[in-house]
C-alpha cells in the first residue's frame, strides 16, 4: 500500500512538472514572438525617422530659358523625388500625383535637372511663383507603393 502511494506521487510530480514546463515554453514562445515583432517595428520606425533627418534637398536655380529646375542633395541619404510643382503664390497648390520623378544622390558633386513640363508641373498665372518639391529617402521608398511612408517625406517650398 505504501509502495503504490509512492509511485502515484512520482507520477503526479512528473506530470505537474511537464505541464509547468509546457506552459512555460508556450508563454516564452508568445512573449518572444511579441518581442520580436515589437523589435522589428521599433527598428523600422527608427530607420524611417533617421532617414527623414538625413534628407535635405536644395533648389539651386530655375533655368526659365530652358525650362529646367536644378536641384541638389547636401544630405546623407539618396532621395527619390515624388512630386514637383511650380504655381503662382497667390493660387492654391495644384493636385499632386505621387510618382518617382527622379533620384538625387546624396552628394553635392553634381546638380540634377528636373525638366519643367515633363518632371515638374507648371501652373501659369500671376507672378511671383512658388516651387514645391516632395521627396523621400530611398531607403524607405517602396516603388510599388510610393505613398507607403508618405509621412516621412520632406517638402521643399520656396519662392522663385
Amino acid at each position, binding site marked *: 500500500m505504501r509502495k503504490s502511494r509512492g509511485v502515484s*506521487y*512520482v507520477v503526479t*510530480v512528473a506530470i*505537474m*512538472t511537464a*505541464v*509547468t*514546463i509546457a*506552459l*512555460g*515554453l508556450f*508563454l*516564452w514562445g508568445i*512573449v*518572444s514572438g511579441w*518581442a520580436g515583432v*515589437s*523589435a522589428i517595428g*521599433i*527598428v523600422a*520606425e*527608427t530607420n524611417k*525617422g*533617421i532617414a527623414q*533627418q*538625413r534628407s*535635405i534637398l*536644395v533648389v*539651386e*536655380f*530655375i*533655368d*526659365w*530659358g*530652358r525650362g*529646367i529646375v*536644378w536641384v*541638389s542633395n*547636401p544630405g546623407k541619404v539618396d532621395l527619390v523625388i515624388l512630386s514637383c510643382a511650380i504655381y503662382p503664390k497667390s493660387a492654391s497648390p495644384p493636385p499632386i500625383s505621387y510618382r518617382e520623378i527622379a533620384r538625387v544622390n546624396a552628394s*553635392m*558633386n*553634381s*546638380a540634377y*535637372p528636373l525638366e519643367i513640363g515633363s518632371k515638374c508641373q507648371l501652373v501659369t498665372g500671376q507672378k511671383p511663383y512658388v516651387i514645391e518639391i516632395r521627396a523621400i529617402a530611398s531607403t524607405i521608398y517602396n516603388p510599388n507603393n510610393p505613398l507607403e511612408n508618405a509621412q516621412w517625406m520632406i517638402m521643399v517650398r520656396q519662392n522663385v
Partner: protein
Amino acid sequence: MCRRNVGRRRGVSAIAGGAIVLAIFFMVIVPLVILMQNSYALFLNESNSRRIFDTDRMSESLTVGVSQDAITKRLTLLLSNDGPVNVRIVRVWAIDVVRQTSIPMAKPCLEGELLSLPPGGNGTLDVQTCVNGFTGIVQFLAVTERGRIFSSNKIYLKEGGLIDIVFPYTLTVSIINMKKGRMYEVYVTPLGNGKVSPEKFTHKATASNENVTVAFGIFPGNYSVALYENGKLVQIPEGNPQLIEVPDKQAVIFILNRGPIISLPLDAIIIAPKKVSGNSLFIVEVDVQLSDKANESVMITSVSNILITSDLPPGQFDSDCSYYGGFSIRPGEREIVALCSIWVGWEKGGTGTKSVGISVPAGTIYGIGEESGISYTNEPESTTIKVTP
C-alpha cells in the same frame, strides 16, 4: 518524513516555472528594453547631427564680388568667407539675368572641388570661360557644400568683359557751412545722355560750420546738381538744384545761409491784471520768450529777483514769488520763469487809488546758447497795477 519528500517533489515544477519566468524576463524583456533605448539613442544622435548641420549651414556667410584682372582682363570671382565656419564652394552658376538662364550651357559654369575657405579667408575663381563673348547682365551664384547659395551683384558685360569707363572730367561739389549733426546728400543727375559716377554723395556733418568738397567722374553733358539737408531740398539764393553743363562748368558750390550765431535779447513778458480791488489776492506771471530769429536754443540758467513795489501803507501789501530756471527754450518759444502771489489790503473808508509796480530789470533772466555758449539776457520790462477800493 513522508511529507518532507512530497514537498520536495512538488517544488520541482515551481522551480521550473520560476526558471522559465526568469528566462523570459532576461532573454526577452530586457533585450527588448535595451533595443528600444538603443534605437532612441540612435535617433537622438541623428537628430543632433542634423541640428548641428543646420546650425553650421545657417552660419555660412560668403561675399561674392566680381572683378577683372587689370592686366589679363579676365573676369574673376572674389570670394570672402565672413562667417564663423569653413565654407567649401562646390559649384558656380553664371546666370543671364534678363533671360533667367544659365550661361554658357545648360549646366553649372564651374563644378567640383573649387575652393575651401576658412573663416575670414578670401579666394578667387576665374570665371572668364563662363562668360566668353557674352554681352548683357550677368550674375554669379556660388553653391556651398552644405547647400547654401550666395549671389554676386548683377554686372553688365560687353563681349565677356567689364566695360572700362574713364571719365574725362571731374565735377567738384562743395558744401560750405554745414550744421553739426545734419545729413547732407548731393545728387548729380544727367539730363540727357550724360554719365556720372557716383550719382549720389552722402555726408553727415560732425562739426559746426564744417565744409566738404567731393569729386564726381563725369562725361560732357547737362546735369542737375541738388543738395538735400536731412532729406529736404536746401533753399539758397543761388538756387537749388543747380543746372550745369560740363565741360563749361565743373564746380558747384553750395554756401549755406548760416552766419555766425549772435546773441539776441530775451523778451520778459509780465502777465498781470491792470486793476485790482483792495483786500484781494492775485497772481502775476512772468514769462520769457526767445526771438524766432535766434539761431540756436537757449538754456535758461538763472532768474534773479523781480521787483514788486507799492504805495500802499505798510502792512497792507505783501508778495511772494517762485522762480523757475534750468530749462531750454527754442527760437520763438515761450516759458514761465516766475509766479508771484500779491496781496493788497485797503483801509476802511479809504478813498482814491493806489498802485503796485512790477519790474523785471535788465539781466534778471539769464541764459546760455546751447550751440555757441554765448550769454542771453532780458531787456527791462515793467508794469503797474491799479488798486481801487
